[in-house]
């Protein structure tokens, strides 16, 4: 198996075949990020996926050999998502403020198993997809600055340090946006499950 470094070197010299092999290593992650950040706009996820790799191919000469390719690709994709969102929605940065006291909720659901996989019945699979749709809908309502942090951390599983590098933020800022984003989503999930309670008992609301 050719090393990533060799593939990068060949790609720098315009070898599209070598670059396609790099694409296949990273495309699922980049597409998933684009899907969840540009949710509700399916053609945008496709465009961001294509533009990310095309931009990377064209700018590979400027990529530092000692840097991490995945982090660099996530950065390009995040910037593209962000710019498209700002352009289309004219969405201003909306700071999500902490509430004075976050202990005021007595309606908390009892703790329970989230999923009973690995072998879900068809009914459980349907409920799981219901939950997935509800989570995606709630994410779409989260301001994009926060959505990027939440998707990189909780969906993509990047560390706080790597997320900070991708978004060029401080680690403290990543943690702050992550916390506020999670609180917002928790409340959105509750609202949506209170309006449409999931059928059956396999999955507890978040």
């Amino acid at each position, binding site marked *: 198996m050719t090393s990533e470094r060799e593939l990068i070197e060949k790609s720098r010299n*315009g070898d599209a075949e070598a670059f396609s092999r790099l694409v296949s290593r990273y*495309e*699922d992650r980049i*597409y998933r990020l684009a899907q969840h950040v540009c949710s509700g706009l399916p053609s945008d996820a496709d465009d961001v996926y294509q533009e990310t790799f095309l931009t990377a191919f064209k700018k590979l000469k400027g990529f530092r050999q000692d840097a991490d390719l995945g982090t660099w690709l996530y950065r390009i994709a995040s910037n593209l998502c962000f710019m498209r969102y700002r352009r289309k929605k004219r969405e201003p940065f909306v700071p999500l403020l902490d509430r004075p006291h976050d202990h005021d909720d007595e309606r908390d659901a009892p703790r329970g198993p989230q999923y009973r996989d690995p072998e879900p019945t068809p009914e459980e699979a349907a409920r799981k997809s219901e939950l*997935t749709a509800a*989570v995606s809908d709630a994410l779409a309502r989260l301001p994009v600055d926060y959505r990027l942090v939440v998707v990189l951390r909780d969906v993509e599983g990047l560390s706080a340090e790597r997320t900070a590098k991708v978004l060029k933020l401080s680690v403290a800022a990543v*943690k702050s946006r992550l916390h506020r984003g999670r609180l917002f989503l928790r409340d959105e999930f509750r609202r949506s499950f209170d309006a449409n309670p999931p059928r059956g008992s396999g999955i507890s609301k978040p």
Partner: protein
Amino acid sequence: MKELEKLSCRRRVALLCDYLDGELPAASRRLVAAHRRSCLPCAQVLASLERTVRALKGLRGDAKPPAASRRTLKTALARAARPRR
């Protein structure tokens, strides 16, 4: 929890994130866990945030770019490579 009250808001948020993400050093983790056992409101907030994080992790499943989109990218890459040869 006196130790928590002494922290600035920013450090408290960082501590909470690290706790939820399992990244707290053992001593601090024990401190939060002990507080959680004795404070129902805090326990409820933590439980609700844990469920939120689990729900988000549920989105981690497979994501494949559509075949048509992959073909378009391949063509665009070949076109971008041509003038450089």
